[in-house]
């Protein structure tokens, strides 16, 4: 006699449908608002938000480095003569970041030379 397949359709369907999936009220409201024109902008996708976050963080870091460059230069390692580069080393626990300050007129352009573990 042929044995009944334990993984029959009913078994799988019961298992798959066992988890209820009501639509989250916030999502429902958001989509309804977009359909009626109360909300125009679409929520950016997860990957887009992630990329935007990285770009924003990189911009902020770059800005902080540019602004604090002169301070670090004056209070950190010996001052280099204008037009030449100097090196600042920042020790973060576990990592060592080497930044080369390319001096130009009025500002410093930081170039992260390398991160050593």
């Amino acid at each position, binding site marked *: 006699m042929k044995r009944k397949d*334990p993984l029959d359709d009913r078994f799988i369907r019961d298992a798959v449908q066992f988890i209820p999936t009501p639509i989250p009220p916030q*999502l429902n409201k958001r989509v309804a608002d977009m*359909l009626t024109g109360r909300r125009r902008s679409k*929520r950016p996708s997860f990957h887009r938000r992630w990329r935007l976050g990285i770009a924003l963080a990189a911009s902020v870091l770059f800005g902080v480095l540019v602004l604090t460059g002169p301070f670090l230069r004056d209070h950190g390692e010996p001052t280099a003569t204008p037009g030449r580069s100097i090196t600042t080393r920042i020790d973060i626990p576990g990592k060592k970041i080497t930044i080369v300050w390319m001096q130009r007129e009025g500002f410093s352009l930081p170039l992260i030379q390398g991160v050593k573990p």
Partner: protein
Amino acid sequence: MKLINPLALARHPRPGGEISSAEQEIWEMEGFESRLEPLKDGLYGFILKSLGFNEDAADVYQETVLRAFKYRKGFKRDRSFKTWIFSIANNEVRRYFRKAKHTLSIDRETIFGMMPGKEADKEQRVYEIFAAAAFLTERQKRMFFLFYESGFSIREIAQITGTTENNVKVTLNQSRARIRSHLGGSHET
């Protein structure tokens, strides 16, 4: 936005029986919303489970409904609205997997957190099925959940995915075989 009651509009037609484009728009929108309302949970469930309970399911659902709304004039009235909107969801899920470079893993805590929490044995079996389903190919997942979660027939799945009924049968058989192999002997009686 205040919606006009279509029944009132029908009772008080404009002189000459004409309706403006704005009123036509409201008619179509109300029709869209009333058709979508009973399908929302099922549509979200199909997307959520196809994506392995990933949080991106909300974005895919949103994109599905907005796309359906945008192209609602393309819906043919002799066709099932449910089949039509699930075909859009199917395309959106496929598009998501094409864009996503990483593989989606199943989070045990998330799945157990969504279960009613009354039958420990059954919940473990349910989790095993979903964990095994994570190993299906993207195409197998879509057909698997259209069949087992949304309850579509083979013919309807063929319409939704734009393939033949035989192709759907073969894909479902392959899905079952793959799930069986991942479950190993744990479900032998």
